[in-house]
């Protein structure tokens, strides 16, 4: 647990969770500049939220709560990208098979496809991709475990449909 006013501890925690923060930011923002900004903002909010951590949940789920709340807030404040824009970006990436095979391109494509999922499914899947258990996901999102399982199942189906569409 982070100790109050122990800024070094907070910095260590931020560094530890930084890759997770970056992954989560990719699930909420596709535009690189804004994605970087969002990741930084998520880190700041985690840093500001750490002194309030009170052991009622695990540090991991507490941090993911903050990260995803900032993500939703980001959609509310900065959502300008239309579906058309996302479609055109996806088409551009599919135009070259060689490029599409590259690993980082596949990551980008996964992020794009996640963004095309409805938010309720996307959040569950993003947390699952971060290796959280269903119990942890239900704690982060404030849903029942059965609800998480249903959403996860739907998310997987929806994602496989999207991936099949890309593979054609």
């Amino acid at each position, binding site marked *: 647990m982070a100790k109050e006013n122990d800024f070094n501890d907070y910095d260590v925690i931020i560094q530890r969770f930084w890759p997770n923060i970056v992954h989560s930011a990719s699930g909420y923002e596709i535009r690189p500049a804004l994605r970087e900004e969002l990741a930084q903002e998520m880190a700041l909010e985690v840093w500001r939220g750490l002194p309030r951590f009170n052991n009622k949940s695990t540090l991991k789920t507490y941090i993911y709560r903050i990260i995803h709340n900032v993500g939703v807030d980001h959609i509310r404040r900065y959502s300008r990208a239309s579906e058309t824009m996302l479609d055109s970006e996806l088409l551009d990436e599919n135009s070259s098979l060689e490029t599409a095979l590259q690993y980082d391109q596949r990551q980008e494509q996964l992020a794009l496809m996640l963004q095309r999922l409805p938010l309720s499914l996307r959040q569950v899947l993003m947390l699952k991709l971060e290796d959280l258990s269903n119990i942890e996901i239900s704690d982060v999102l404030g849903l029942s475990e059965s609800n998480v399982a249903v959403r996860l199942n739907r998310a997987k189906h929806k*994602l496989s449909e999207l991936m099949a569409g890309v593979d054609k």
Partner: protein
Amino acid sequence: MKESDDLAALSRLWQSKVSEPAPQLAKLTKKYRRQFVLMAINIILETSILCGAGYFFAQSLLGSSSLYMQLWLGFVSSWGLVTYILINRSRWKSIRLLNTRSVNASLTEQINLVRQEIVRWRLSFIATLIFMAVWVILFVARSIFNEQELITTAQVVVTETILMLALVLFKWREYLSKQVLKKISE
């Protein structure tokens, strides 16, 4: 993706993402403070404008201003007051949003905030439309009764054009807010 193996593969792909530059917390804290100061300045500015409009309205009621001027200032003051209250209520709720709550609980509040935003843009659109109508009626009435302080045609054209642009902006913002609502309600 068919089975859990596929999900595990996707998970590996997802987690292997190349990291962005490390967080610069000191810089971010400064930015956060700057945003807070900017918001405070905005609130002070809006309050001053509203007080100014209210003062002129009170002056016109107490003084010997024409009925047209009183109507005009009364309309501007009440329009400004309604918009001011709605914007600041929304701001206050936005500030009080707790990031540490479960995502589902804060999502409900986020949805309410967007709904309020939509109402605000719609209200601004309707109010501006009424504003335009009042402006034209005043111009026509003054022309018919041949009053001394005539509003010139140029003044009417310029005002109506500006207000027309404002109408387009309000509609566009309402559309964007509806898109956001759709996105976060899914």
